[in-house]
């Protein structure tokens, strides 16, 4: 895992990363916004797509488009092979034990809802508890609230400290016989905090409690090994790992997935159907009812291949260097305060400015061609924890440069000039 403190040692490693070549792979980056070169720093919301992804989707529709797992004709065979190849690539990407543990879903949100509605409905009952943390995205809060409401269960929330780090001792105290599942983010989208997932899993497993990890922000920023983490579920979104929207991955341990009831019914998820009885298909198809998002799955495959070609370790080092540089530069501006100062952090720099609302920061930065997110980042409880209505957030991607960080700093000074 990366730490900002290690950044001086990383300069050598980062220098092998050919940033200018990487930037050429992303057509969208080469444009001006309001007459200024685009500085895209909203990667935690969604990432841009390399040409390889755009072309993979286009080629699929031009050459191979067909329904999968059905026809005996050539196009169907090609489409099926391409689709299943991505499953194998996803297995390698996460180091899952088996391809049947990879389920294609619409995104992280759908993955979490799937687990809440199947594993959750089956295993969480009246008086039971679901444990999350105070830094979760709404998508890792609301599906559990819905479940708890339905079952008469209780949502428990492990607190975070003023740096935005999970208070592990408090977390441990909340684990007990009533806890039926733990759901935690790997990397906080609002604060950038990296959670000690391995340790969290160890603590939960000591009580035989399974752990779901929301990996939406971690997957694009660090190598993920689900077997090393020993987590039971891992969810991620394609569009945050430089792939298309509308496709994501749910990893689940086979033993758990086998025991779970299906989620949606329909074609592809069945082995046989009569009006008396339906036998469900084997994993992973049990959880993939209906014609899936084939084109975007193939686009996701191109994204995984692209990330592998650069190397997740290299990307992690590049972003650690950039975050350290950005943190130092932004903190040095008087009147600016960074929110989220965890020791283990990646990719995200949230900040507030004295007497200036984040919305106004966002508008003025936009006129400088700089795209940042302003608001509560779908994490209203995090804003409440820090007693602020919103933050401005710069979030980095594999193609961002130190020059772009300099542009951000210049932009922040412009904000102060206009509104000061």
């Amino acid at each position: 895992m990366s730490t900002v403190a290690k950044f001086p040692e990383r300069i050598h490693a980062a220098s092998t990363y050919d940033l200018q070549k990487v930037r050429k792979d992303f057509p969208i980056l080469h444009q001006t916004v309001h007459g200024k070169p685009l500085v895209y720093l909203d990667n935690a919301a969604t990432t841009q797509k390399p040409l390889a992804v755009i072309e993979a989707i286009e080629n699929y529709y031009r050459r191979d488009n067909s329904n999968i797992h059905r026809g005996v004709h050539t196009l169907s065979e090609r489409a099926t092979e391409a689709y299943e190849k991505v499953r194998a690539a996803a297995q390698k990407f996460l180091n899952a034990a088996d391809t049947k543990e990879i389920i294609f879903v619409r995104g992280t949100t759908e993955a979490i809802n799937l687990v809440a509605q199947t594993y959750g409905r089956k295993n969480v009952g009246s008086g039971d508890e679901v444990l999350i943390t105070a830094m979760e995205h709404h998508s890792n809060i609301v599906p559990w609230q819905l479940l708890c409401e339905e079952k008469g269960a209780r949502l428990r929330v492990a607190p975070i400290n003023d740096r935005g780090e999970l208070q592990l001792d408090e977390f441990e105290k909340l684990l007990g016989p009533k806890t039926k599942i733990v759901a935690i983010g790997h990397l906080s989208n609002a604060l950038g905090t990296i959670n000690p997932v391995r340790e969290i899993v160890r603590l939960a497993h000591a009580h035989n409690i399974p752990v779901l990890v929301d990996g939406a922000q971690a997957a694009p920023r660090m190598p993920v090994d689900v077997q090393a983490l020993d987590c039971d579920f891992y969810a991620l979104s394609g569009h945050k790992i430089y792939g298309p929207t509308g496709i994501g991955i749910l990893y689940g341990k086979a033993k758990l997935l086998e025991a779970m009831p299906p989620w949606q019914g329909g074609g592809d998820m069945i082995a046989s159907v009569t009006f008396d009885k339906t036998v469900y298909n084997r994993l992973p198809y049990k959880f993939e009812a209906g014609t899936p998002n084939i084109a975007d799955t193939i686009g996701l495959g191109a994204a995984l291949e692209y990330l592998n070609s650069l190397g997740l370790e290299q990307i992690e080092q590049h972003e650690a260097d950039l975050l350290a540089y950005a943190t130092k530069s932004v903190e040095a501006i008087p009147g600016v305060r960074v929110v989220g100062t965890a020791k283990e952090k990646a990719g995200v720099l949230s900040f507030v400015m004295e007497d200036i609302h984040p919305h106004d920061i966002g508008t003025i930065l936009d006129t400088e061609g700089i795209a940042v997110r302003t608001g509560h980042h779908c994490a209203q409880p995090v804003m409440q924890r820090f007693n602020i209505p919103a933050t401005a957030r710069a979030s980095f991607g594999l193609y961002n440069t130190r020059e772009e960080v300099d542009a951000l700093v210049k932009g922040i000074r412009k904000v102060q000039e206009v509104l000061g």
Partner: protein
Amino acid sequence: MSDVRELRELYQEVILEHSKKPKNFRAIETANHKAEGFNPLCGDHFTVYIDVQGGAISDIGFQGSGCAISKASASMMTQMLKGKTETEAEGIFTKFHDLVTGHAGDGQDMGKLAVFAGVSEFPLRVKCATLAWHALRAALKGDQEAVSTE
């Protein structure tokens, strides 16, 4: 640069002054109308208090937090509407809405509120400019639920 000019149009001195030192920024205990306005996308949140006597707004105030545009708009709204009848207030609301959405020219007949004409160049900020106004409308109608921009 036209963008700098647009920015100056949006963040006019008057708007910045009102956002830093808002007028009528207070709760009115005796108000007989009150409503909340909330923008769930950015967390802006205002409560508008109105005391209506004999069909006219005898006192008006607001509290809450938001960006420069939403706060200045709320502040200037309270100044503009004190003493106006409910019907007049409704008319000013409509004109103001047309102004910030670019349907009312330069707002010559809007008095001080004309400074908000620049908002029409920033469509994403229209909700900021109209938040307190929507709360005002809800308050006059006697709606109990908080109004939301979404």
